[in-house]
């Protein structure tokens, strides 16, 4: 049962949120220019990272804003929350 720190509303229970999966997948600017293989990669292939994973969440039961979260997919600990359009924080060495 995660507790997620919504950038607008503060820490809230997981039940108020919706997970959108992997973040930073950019829709191709010109899909027609892509091969079927490239399009399939955008459409279906996912990093599915075991470990620190940048993913999208939406505070759907609250402010309904989307934002990004870096969450460890094993420990479920949340390392960072940041806005859509921002780059993922650099990993600490």
């Amino acid at each position, binding site marked *: 049962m995660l507790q997620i720190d919504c950038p607008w509303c503060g820490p809230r229970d*997981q039940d108020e949120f919706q*997970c959108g999966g992997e973040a930073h997948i950019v829709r191709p600017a010109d899909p027609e220019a892509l091969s*079927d*293989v490239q399009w399939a*990669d955008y459409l279906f292939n*996912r990093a*599915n*990272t*075991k470990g620190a994973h940048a993913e999208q969440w939406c505070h759907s039961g609250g402010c309904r804003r989307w934002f990004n979260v870096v969450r460890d*997919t094993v420990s479920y600990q949340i390392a960072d929350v940041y806005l859509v359009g921002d780059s993922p924080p650099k990993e600490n060495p």
Partner: protein
Amino acid sequence: MKKNRYSIFSLARNAVSYHRDWRAAWRSPDPAPSYDVIVVGGGGHGLATAYYLAAQHKVGRIAVLEKGWIGGGNTGRNTTIVRSNYLWDESAHLYEKSLQLWEGLSQELNFNVMFSQRGVMNLGHSLQDMRDIYRRSNANRLNGIDSEILNPAQIKAMVPAMNVSANARYPVLGASFQERGGVARHDAVAWGFARAADEHGVDIIQNCEVTGICRENGAVTGVETNRGTIKASKVAVVAAGHSSVLGDMAGLRMPIESHPLQALVSEPLKPVLDTVVMSNAVHGYVSQSDKGELVIGAGIDAYIGYGQRGSFSIIEGNVAAIVELFPIFSRVRMLRQWGGIVDVCPDACPIISKTSLKGLYFNCGWGTGGFKATPGSGWVFAHTVAHDEPHALNAAFNMERFTTGALIDEHGAAGVAH
């Protein structure tokens, strides 16, 4: 005659010697430097693959590498439902092959996997559910798979504990029923395949984690493990939950996400539920184990999770659904819950396929419903690995479908509940 054959007679014989003379069900050898085929993953699917490779395809030197203990992943964590009443032809034929193997599996393996054909009921709660049920049942019949459609009165007669009142929030309007479906003893499936594979010379190596996939010139040459490099010209990956991790080692991007899936059991009760009941709309599926526990499957969490645990709210929703369907279970108590990691494909169908790397094969993406496919999955995957070509039954379950768009969309038929 196998020396270690199981029967009531061998049991009696061994009772005389206080069971001191039973042999190990499988050896625990150290890994050899090389094999013909390495199967990565010692779950039911991997062990079945190794068994059929050895028993049917006479492949000589086979190893199953398991990072933990065999059957410790989803094989030992699921709700053990077996059925074949899938909508689309491709799925129906694959799962029906598997069901037919189930029907003779205890005898084939000489290990009682307790396959109990007590029937599987899929409930409909809306007019659209009932259209879908007719569509699927009709397709099942035409594919040679048994299926009945039950009305609420017939359901009540078979499952007296169920609330089929028209006043329920989502009343039970009917159900499909596959009589040949049922449940099995999950651990026994892994152990039975392991023991039978071992008798055919397969090396089952536990506590052996694959850390890299070796390749040269576009072909696989072996695997790196925590117990050293092991060479093989064919590597068959059946590592549900960690398919992407292994794909990554081979440089493959996969159309897979790994999600937590939870299940729970009640305290044991005297027999009160004689079939498997599944409902997608009122989300829950339940059967009663031979020990008497109500075995209840929950839904998956929407986030990726490799932690073998999910959210409590999923359990709450799931238990509410069970109490809604079975009001007399309200005072029964939940004993234990647990979680597994399921690989989910975009079309809720598995990948049983060659890959772009020669000699590397993947069997993954079974989502929430892989247990029922265990023997069939191993059977077609063994064929695929042995012949470097898919069997007709798994040809459609290739990786290319995500490029061509030829998905086998089972969302309608399979939904979440398996």
